[in-house]
């Protein structure tokens, strides 16, 4: 049972990585095609596309990390911790029997620990780098003097 779960997890992760790579390579291929249509040689178009795309490995890692954080399995685990906590709370408050009420407390603690673990495992530098504005570059306006205005 555990082996099957582990195998599923590994397959899921592999698929996730493949999907990210496929998406990023599609973008690079489209850039290559654009440059080739502009008259560049295949090698030059490839080099220009990679330059234009930026740090492929860094982007890949960031996307895989965010995808993992957002995966179905992770969402199921998060929901499970909430359900366990609610069950624990119900057992704790509705039972006058000390031993059963104590079981409720244990469930709550398990849920909190699980949630904390999920949170800590989800942390990475990209969690804190939400400066999307830094990805924009302003270039020189064309010679005719026309500029972006907020009119």
């Amino acid at each position: 049972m555990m082996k099957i779960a582990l195998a599923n997890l590994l397959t899921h992760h592999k698929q996730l990585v493949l999907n990210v790579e496929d998406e990023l390579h599609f973008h690079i291929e489209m850039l290559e095609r654009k440059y080739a249509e502009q008259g560049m040689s295949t090698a030059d178009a490839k080099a220009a596309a990679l330059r234009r795309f930026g740090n492929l490995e860094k982007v890949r890692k960031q996307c895989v990390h965010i995808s993992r954080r957002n995966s179905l399995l992770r969402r199921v685990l998060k929901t499970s911790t909430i359900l366990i906590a609610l069950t624990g709370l119900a057992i704790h408050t509705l039972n006058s029997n000390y031993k059963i009420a104590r079981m409720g407390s244990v469930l709550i603690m398990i849920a909190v620990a699980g949630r904390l673990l999920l949170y800590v495992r989800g942390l990475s530098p990209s969690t804190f780098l939400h400066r999307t504005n830094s990805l924009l570059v302003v270039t020189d306006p064309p010679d005719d003097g026309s500029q972006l205005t907020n009119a």
Partner: protein
Amino acid sequence: MANERTDLMQGTLELLILNTLARESMHGYGIVQRIHAAAEDLLKVEDGSLYPALYRMEERGLIKSEWGVSENNRRAKFYKLTKSGQKKLEAERANWNRISKAVTKILRAT
């Protein structure tokens, strides 16, 4: 100021992405091309850096993605706006207009 990074307001790229996806679903390459074309190349998005932003927006439920087939018959991931993304776009547009009006007034007055 050629190719100079500038400190644009927080969330500007997000607003541009939401606005681009408001018309139709698009893949990442299409989004970048549309932004460049609309800005007449005055404002450029670093191509690779678009993706972490897209993934974060999907994580927050502003957009959703599905695999489809591109114009050149290649498997590609298409993004589209969710209801929550639509609301966010309207709020961000209003916010942007308010701020730009205020800044323009100040610049004209001084």
